[in-house]
């Protein structure tokens, strides 16, 4: 396999105001107080047992795409990142410098995707992602979080969506997409606020903001498949959650509550969500726990699972299968985090003539390096992120060498992350959602 070509991009050291200004406001007293407060009040046997049990064996290292892509430099290994952050905080009983906190925040927010692959490699199942998330929590409480992602958390707090979508922008966008789609599908509706519908469809805020055609496509699929569905007209329509990744659990809780309560208000049977990984983690696994529900209060169905049902029951008439050979990216949050690997393959095979497997695949797939909020930390970290995932580039090039022309990635973050990787390493492949392919090949009215 050829070494992926690397574009000569100058590494410009960009400063991150979120970290700089945040750290400049810190005093050592405050740091000590906050660290110990989080360690005492918010953590317990789990953290202690993980820290005491880790035998410093390094066996988690090769799980991590950052470590593998940075020539196995140990400071990128999962346990190496833990050593540079939470171990220090614990050993020094919180007596660390503002400079240390700045670096810890950068490591925790931009050098780990919380993808949980290392959990599968550690003989003891030590939850490195949890340890790193605890570091983010501490940094959040100290006000030292990368600026770009902090801005999205602010947006969540103010608007209950990630992208500062204002009150009327949302229903306007839906109506606009409905009108557009009616040109192609006469009689199509995007039913707003329909109480008692089977399905509430929720999306992430970048869809109405930049990718309204995804809402168009979803409406087309719902329409053709005859699904009894609805979308909320008010707050609660956004299922995304960057607060979960900044360690701002309080806002995470508010956002998730709004989402579940909206579904409850509409008395829907279940929530179907678009093709997004982190949002699934938030609604299915993390946010619900913060709110005290061991399982989501209302059943959550990821788009992969939903398309699987529709295709299995022949609800979507297909004109002809997608011709170009595809390869399947397994987003950590829905595959390693939700077990949808076989359903994803069922959908891919139902839609496409040829599916070429990437290696490793299924729950062992390498993360895209965008997830866990890393891509949301913005341009200062982009180069580090794409360089930190050379193994993904190699994986893609290998799939391409075996014929794959299109990458299917049922996750928004993965999409953006893989796009950056393919541009940087010059890999000529298209990236699509399942929804793009379904829309393209389904039977439409003449």
């Amino acid at each position, binding site marked *: 396999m050829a070494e992926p070509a690397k574009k000569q991009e100058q590494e410009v050291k960009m400063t991150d105001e979120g970290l700089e200004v945040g750290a400049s406001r810190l005093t050592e007293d405050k740091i000590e107080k906050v660290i110990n407060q989080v360690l005492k009040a918010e953590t317990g*046997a789990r953290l202690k047992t993980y820290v005491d049990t880790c*035998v410093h064996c*390094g066996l988690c290292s090769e799980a991590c795409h950052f470590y593998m892509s940075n020539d196995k430099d140990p400071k990128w290994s999962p346990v*190496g990142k833990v050593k540079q952050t939470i171990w220090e905080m614990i050993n020094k009983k919180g007596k660390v410098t503002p400079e240390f906190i700045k670096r810890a925040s950068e490591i925790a927010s931009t050098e780990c995707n919380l993808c949980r692959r290392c959990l599968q490699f550690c003989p003891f199942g030590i*939850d490195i992602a949890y340890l790193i998330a605890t570091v983010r929590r501490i940094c959040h409480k100290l006000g030292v979080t990368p600026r770009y992602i902090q801005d999205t958390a602010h947006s969540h707090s103010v608007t209950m969506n990630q992208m500062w979508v204002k009150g009327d922008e949302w229903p306007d966008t839906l109506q606009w997409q409905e009108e557009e789609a009616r040109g192609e599908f006469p009689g199509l509706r995007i039913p707003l606020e329909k109480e008692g519908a089977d399905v509430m469809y929720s999306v992430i805020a970048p869809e109405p903001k930049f990718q309204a055609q995804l809402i168009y496509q979803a409406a087309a699929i719902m329409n053709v498949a005859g699904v009894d569905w609805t979308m909320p007209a008010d707050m609660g329509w956004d299922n995304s959650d960057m607060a979960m990744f900044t360690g701002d659990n309080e806002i995470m809780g508010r956002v998730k509550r709004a989402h579940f309560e909206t579904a409850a208000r509409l008395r829907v049977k279940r929530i179907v969500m678009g093709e997004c990984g982190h949002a699934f983690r938030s609604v299915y696994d993390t946010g619900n726990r913060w709110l005290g529900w061991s399982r989501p209060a209302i059943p959550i169905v990821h788009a992969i699972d939903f398309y699987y049902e529709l295709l299995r029951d022949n609800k979507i008439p297909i004109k002809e299968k997608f011709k170009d050979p595809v390869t399947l990216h397994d987003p950590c949050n829905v595959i390693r985090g939700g077990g949808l690997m076989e359903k994803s393959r069922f959908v891919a095979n139902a839609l496409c003539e040829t599916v070429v497997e990437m290696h490793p695949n299924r729950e062992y797939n390498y993360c895209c390096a965008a997830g866990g909020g890393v891509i949301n930390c913005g341009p200062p970290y982009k180069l580090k992120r794409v360089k930190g995932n050379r193994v993904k580039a190699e994986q893609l090039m290998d799939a391409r060498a075996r014929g794959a022309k299109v990458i299917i990635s049922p996750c928004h973050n993965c999409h953006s992350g893989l796009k950056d990787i393919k541009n940087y390493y010059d890999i000529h492949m298209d990236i699509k959602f399942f929804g793009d392919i379904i829309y393209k090949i389904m039977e439409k009215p003449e």
Partner: protein
Amino acid sequence: MHDIYSFVSGPLAWVAFIAFFAGIMYRLIDMIVQVIKKEPFIFTYMSLKYSLRSIIHWITPFGTLNWRRNPILTIVTFAFHISLILSPIFLLSHVTLWDEAWNISWWTLPDGVADIMALIVIAGSLFFLIRRLTQREVKFVTSTSDYVILAIVAAPFVTGFLAYHQFFGYPIFVILHILAGEIMLVAIPFTRLSHMIFSLFTRAYMGSEFGVIRKSKDY
């Protein structure tokens, strides 16, 4: 010499065994109390089936992806841990001591086998030492305590081997052997050697989370 021997094999042995068992109980109870107090949700997700699925895969040589990726390490790790646990329990001269003191005895290993097992533990310790010194990712996270722990584990086997073969200074090595064994017993609950107890629980919890919620493999 005899007095020292009686002391280390008598009262000190008592102290060591009590510290070992009481220490383990203390660490376990402390962990469980902490979970009940602060993270009771953990119980909600525990599943016997997936705990066992995870534990069984990880205690099977080559039973997990990471064991398969590191064949030499896997063989050494398993040989090391099996020898480390079995040989002291089933060593003839240890069982004889139990028999003399308490009138209880059980099956024993042939001496030749036990001897090889001691060598395996010593060789394994050397392997881990070299790994710590040479593998960058291990060295980076290694602290002094890791070497101390390794020495604590190797010491009873080195001294035991020397004592058994009665090379030189037999009585000294017997005493050192008993002391080393006692230090190891006491160290288990209070150092990272506690992975002997906690690994079962961390594995069970991760296995349950992966099985119940994430519906994927953690091995």
